[in-house]
């Protein structure tokens, strides 16, 4: 069987370990029968983009320059900082209006049509109808209650993809005014104020979202966001998997915490780890990314 890593390695991938989509999918869907479908889906989602020599303007997207970021959790043996190549990231999270356009042109993703293999029973639960977001889902509020599959399909239809965890976290590591968000008091205030409140029934307009130093907006104060490799952060070691002995020695296998005081980062890791690809959550949306050049 083709390994997902092989497929995913066609994309810029700073850490091969972080892209085990089929492993992800296999783990969470379980049934071997769906694997070929998923391989197809994955191929669709990662079809190579046309080569370009220089960054082209990407409407509605922000060019995130190449750089380093320091993850709060990483594979032992990885360096403390991870290089992230330049990429495009949507300026805003995907809105209800944008997702409505998508389901109009892709009927198989309408709420009543979507295969239960790819969405759970709360898919677009806050919409009034298949083609009617309704009062709880204002046009310019982030779309939520969408599964990873739905988000991937949206991105593929737009010629984009979901950002990797590294890319998303790198973009998020920037504050409103300071490059290191952890040192930006206004950013931290907004972040923890959002974390402190239960999910509201109706989300605010993304256009009010404040930009970080990269120019990406509404990353704080709105929704959690899907990433492509959402549950790559934690892999399983079982006593009967044969490598327990290796794992027994500190450093021979495992993850290391980079910054144990970054509680917000651990909350994102926990949230992602709790998800399966067909799950929907009322505070979980997404935004898309795109490669820069070949």
């Amino acid at each position, binding site marked *: 069987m083709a*390994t997902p890593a092989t497929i995913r390695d066609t994309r810029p991938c700073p850490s091969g*370990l972080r892209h085990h989509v089929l*492993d992800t999918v296999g*783990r969470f*869907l*379980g*049934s071997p*029968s*769906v694997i070929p479908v998923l391989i197809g889906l994955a191929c669709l989602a990662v079809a190579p983009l046309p080569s370009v020599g220089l960054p082209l303007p990407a409407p509605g997207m922000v060019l995130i320059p190449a750089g380093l970021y*320091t993850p709060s*959790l990483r594979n*032992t*043996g990885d360096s*403390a900082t991870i290089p992230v190549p330049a990429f495009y990231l949507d300026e805003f999270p995907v809105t209800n209006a944008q997702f409505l356009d998508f389901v109009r042109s892709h009927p198989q993703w309408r709420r009543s049509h979507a295969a*239960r*293999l790819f969405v759970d029973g*709360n898919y677009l*639960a806050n919409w009034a109808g298949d083609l009617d977001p309704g009062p709880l889902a204002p046009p310019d509020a982030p779309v939520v209650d969408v599964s990873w599959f739905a988000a991937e399909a949206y991105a593929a239809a737009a010629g984009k993809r979901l950002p990797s965890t590294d890319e998303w976290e790198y973009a998020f590591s920037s504050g409103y005014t300071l490059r290191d968000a952890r040192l930006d008091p206004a950013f931290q205030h907004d972040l*923890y104020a959002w*974390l*402190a*409140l*239960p*999910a509201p029934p109706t989300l605010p307009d993304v256009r009010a979202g404040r930009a970080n130093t990269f120019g990406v907006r509404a990353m704080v104060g709105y929704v959690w966001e899907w990433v492509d490799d959402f549950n790559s952060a*934690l*892999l*399983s*070691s*079982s*006593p009967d*998997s044969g490598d*327990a002995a*290796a*794992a*027994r020695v500190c*450093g021979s*296998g*495992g*993850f*290391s*915490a980079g*910054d*144990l*005081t970054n*509680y917000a980062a*651990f*909350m994102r*890791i*926990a*949230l992602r*780890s*709790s998800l*399966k690809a*067909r*799950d*929907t*959550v*009322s*505070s*979980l949306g997404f935004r898309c990314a795109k490669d820069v050049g070949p």
Partner: protein
Amino acid sequence: MKPFHCIPSQIIQASSEAIAPVDTPLPRLSRHRAAPRAPAGLPTVIAGLALALAACLPLVARADDDPSSPRAFQLPPELASLPVEEAVLTSPPFVPPPIKRDYPARVVVHLEVREIVRPIADGTLYTFWTFGGTVPGSFLRVREGDLIDFHLENSPTSKLPHNIDMHAVTGPGGGAVASFTAPGHSSEFMFRALKPGLYVYHCATAPVPMHIGNGMYGMVLVEPKGGLPPVDKEYYVMQGDFYTTGAYGDPGLQSFDAAKSIDERPTYVLFNGSVGALTGAGALTAKVGDRVRIYFGVGGPNLTSSFHIIGEIFDRVYPDGTFGHPLEDVQTTTVPPGSATVVEFRVKVPGTYLLVDHALSRAFNQGALGMLKVSGPENRNVYSGKVSYTLFHSSGPAPQPVSAIVNAPATPALPSPVLAQVNRGRVVFNQICFACHQPNGQGLPTLFPPLAGSDFLKANPERAARIVTHGLTGPVTVNGKAFNNIMPAQSQLSDQQVADVLTFVLNSWGNPGGNLTPARVHEIRNATQ
């Protein structure tokens, strides 16, 4: 960058669910499908301490309503045939009634996690994360040997995933992995209540201290097969420490303060989740003669409680929540985070009894205070109350307070400019001179000469001004006693200050009075001797 934290893999394995049952009749719940093994060559798990504790994050499978998911889990016949009952859950400070059964049952528990905004103090709101809508969470009471069929339901309005580590569980993570649940989802797992005792449960999702610090803990009582001795009142109290961005009592909605939590500097230390939860209308009650049992636990995340009830002696304490070896006649009992105790006592005298953490700053300043109001007839054989109140005259010399001495009235009827000098001079004296000459001007024998009733001063007050401005080295005799020491020049004092402090001294402690002017001090300071 913090140093790496590594954890022996055994700890991690303890959080992995993919472990075959050994001698328990419970098979691994097959609806939690086994995770595919990580491909060879992948690093095996684990995590920093935070994640290991989190038990649990995630690692493996969890309950699934996936239509492609097989639902093959079947209980073995001996468990499948158990009678089924729905658990009675209660909110603090109340406890479900004792169990009457003398046989095991399958007890079905539905516990909903909800993130809610509620007062933590008058005028102060906080977002609590709760098991069942209260802090502490719902109290669960089962019997030794029961099969608990646990459904952890995470409200759709939750922002975060949650899980539950029940200390009554024998199994990896205490159920944490099996119960790890995204918002708007539900997980089911089962466990056998193998050991009687009072057990804490808590959320074990990273960052664990924050989940616990927001109120995610509660208790489960596993009654011994023979039950517990009957009592008249049972109550449920848990202590927790809370960390808010604002200070104690700051109004409005407060956020969790991670830095304070990491430093273990709580803003609030509370019984049952809010200031006043157990006072006023919330006070526990009993009647004289009642046997009272309190199930007391500590959620933490950080502080150990020194649990004490002011004016009671516990007849019986079941330390660490174990029923095997009770202690008798205990004043204060220690309960660490993640543990519990059961205290029993018969109330004999009416009145209000305070529940406190006897680390009393927490009671006085951070909210760790509750009340037990006991009604009924007085019991003078045990406690009289106040029977007399009279004036008291000490038989010995009453010690004079320092202030009375230092501030002893100067010679009466001083002209007001001199009085002003005395008052200013007193301040200077109490800042500088008192250290050697002592607050009462008596000095110290052989070291520092007295200024009180000093013949040396009386003989030549202006000499004192020269000593203050220029210092004094060598032998002097004061009131017949020889001193040979060094007094440094107090050249930092202005002419006005020197004049003031000497005027204060001249008018204190039996000295002759009089005053010095700044102009005279200026002349003395600049004189060539």
